[in-house]
């Protein structure tokens, strides 16, 4: 069981490291990057779920229909996921840059404006 499930545990491992990075971060840019790492855990999980031993890519340009291929649907989900990642990160980064312009710091410890 261990080897056949190892990729799933790698996904969980990356997920927890991403959370750790966000929690301990002392720089908002670093925090955004950790969020991106957190997201890659979902890629690994989806990839591992849809994989088939001996399967090829689901592109029938050179291979006949009916060949064993890996699950195409998880790949479609991952594509959406990649786009979502890029856009959310772009938005978050712009918030960090603007906050730095206005407050002069990107350390969440120093940036505590909203409390209580």
């Amino acid at each position, binding site marked *: 069981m261990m080897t056949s499930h190892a990729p799933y545990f790698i996904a969980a491992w990356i*997920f927890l490291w991403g*959370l750790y990075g*966000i*929690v*301990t*971060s002392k720089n*908002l840019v670093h*925090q955004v990057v950790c*969020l991106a790492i*957190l*997201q890659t*855990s*979902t890629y690994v*999980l*989806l990839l591992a*779920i849809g994989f088939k031993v001996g399967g090829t890519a689901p592109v029938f340009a050179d291979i006949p229909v009916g060949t064993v291929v890996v699950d195409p*649907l*998880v790949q479609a*989900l991952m594509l*959406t*996921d990649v786009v*979502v990642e890029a*856009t*959310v990160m772009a*938005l*978050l980064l712009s*918030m*960090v840059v*603007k*906050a730095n312009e*206005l*407050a002069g710091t990107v350390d*969440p*410890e120093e*940036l*505590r*404006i*909203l*409390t*209580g």
Partner: protein
Amino acid sequence: MITALIPLPIAIPLIAAAFIALTGNWIGRRACDTLAIATSSTNIVLTILILRGTWLHTQVYWFGNWWPRGDNVVLGISFTIDAIGASLAVLTTVLTTAGLIFAWKIFEDTENHFQPLMLIFMAAMCGFAYTGDLFNLFVFFELMSVSAFALCGLKTLEPAPLQGAFNFAVVNTVGAFMILIGIALLYARTGALNFAQVGRSLGTHPADALVLLSLLFISVGYLAKAAIVPFHFWLADAHAVAPSPVCVLFSGVMVELGIYAVARVYATIFQGALSAHTSQLREIFLVTAAITALVGGFMCYAEHHLKRLLAFSTISHAGLMLAGVALLTPKALAGLFIYVLSHGVIKGGLFLCAGIVLHRLQRIGESHLHGCGRGMWFTAALFILGAWGLAGAAPFGTLLGESMISDAAKTFQQDWVKYIFMFVEIITAAAVLRVTFRIFFGWGKPAPTDESSQVEELPETKKQQAGETPAVMFVPAAVLILLGVCITAIPQLRSVAQANADSFLNQTAYAREVLNNAQLPAPTLQPSEAITSSIVRSSIAGLMALLLALGTVFRDRLGAILNFTRGLERGNAAVRKLHSGHPGDYVAWLTFGTALLGGMFVWWLR
């Protein structure tokens, strides 16, 4: 006829958003406003037509004509619309229109990016309420989130809005990835994404660890959106800094959609698999709901930043709504959605009133504004009406919802839920009344200052030009609050809600409608029960709220017996300190909550 309209509430605002974004600088601000308001008004009409078409039976719409194949394999994406989802879409469009009209006079420097984002936000929330596909729900969730993050950080002249938006974005994005993990797990098990197909595939086999884990992640993700303790921290930050018309949407419908998603996913997917553990699940979620209601209520009374106060009242009401789901019975669910609709318009109206205060008086902290609002009688009247609505008293629609949920709780020997409702109603209504008495009447001594009221919000408008509230601000606020009353005038409201809640919780019927294109017979409407006892109880709650507010304001004159209000108003220092504005803290709490909820699942549902 209705079928052709179904994609339009999503497609039309998206096209309009792209058009406004492209031509905004040429056609000018007013044309953009007009176009945006016209689009959202069109959407009101469309969503109401769809609501009429789905009043007593579900409509299924397959995008790209991809009907399910042979032995129930779904190839495309479906919208599966019942009256509950459709009415949430109506709420969304009404609140968006009110927000857009309110924004007519404010935001002079947003370069016409505000209106497209509002339209996208609206389209996303409509789609979220309509969809019948697990992954599509996630994509709408992300679309909703991204436009919400951008709208939240709108006021870029000071760092606070950016920090609020950042905290909001980090917590919600982590939640979104959890949802995605949950979806991946379900896909691994069932190889399907449509609610109906996933649900049928899981069937009634007792849930194993994988199913419980996916339930855990999906519900944590959506509960983070719904601001359930301990995932609620972002909400106060985001509401304190977001512009008032945006807060209307955040509090009025976005948070509620989080609750709706949990209910929908549970009802269509997990219900059969967890049928043996319903009572344990009920207890877990009821306790979570009660904690949320209590924390939100106490924090609400301890706040002196007007918007933050309203934000915590939303958290506390989100707790009540979760209680409506947690009972896992049609009656509570019917009550919940009546409650969501009436709370949405009332809270939206109150946030618009807060926007009026900010416009007229240029500040938002209760302690700075003591007596400044004398003469704004109409706004004061709206605040008092809104407080009465929050108290769940007649003639507001909140009364109907509350009484149905409390009745349902009684049948499960969970009578204490009633007292949680009473507590939340009293304390949130009293907080709003207290603010009204101090700001508009100038009664008693000025409010004490606290940490959060130090953060003053930059006004959304330049110095007031005239000494009157413009009609474009006052009318939407008044209309929203009055809609909270009008909702009770819908004929057979409770019976229809009950019939819809019955089919909402009927997993097999749902699957047959979606997968086998079955036409179920229209339900027979049951007459609804009398609510005399609830009227009495809620009137008592309203009166007690009034007394509490008066007691707080005049405590120095009335003697030592009222000193407890000082403590209430100061709040618990330790709990306040937890709301630290640090995204790392919030994510640590999110992890904590997930682990705790997961632990309870392992312990009781295994």
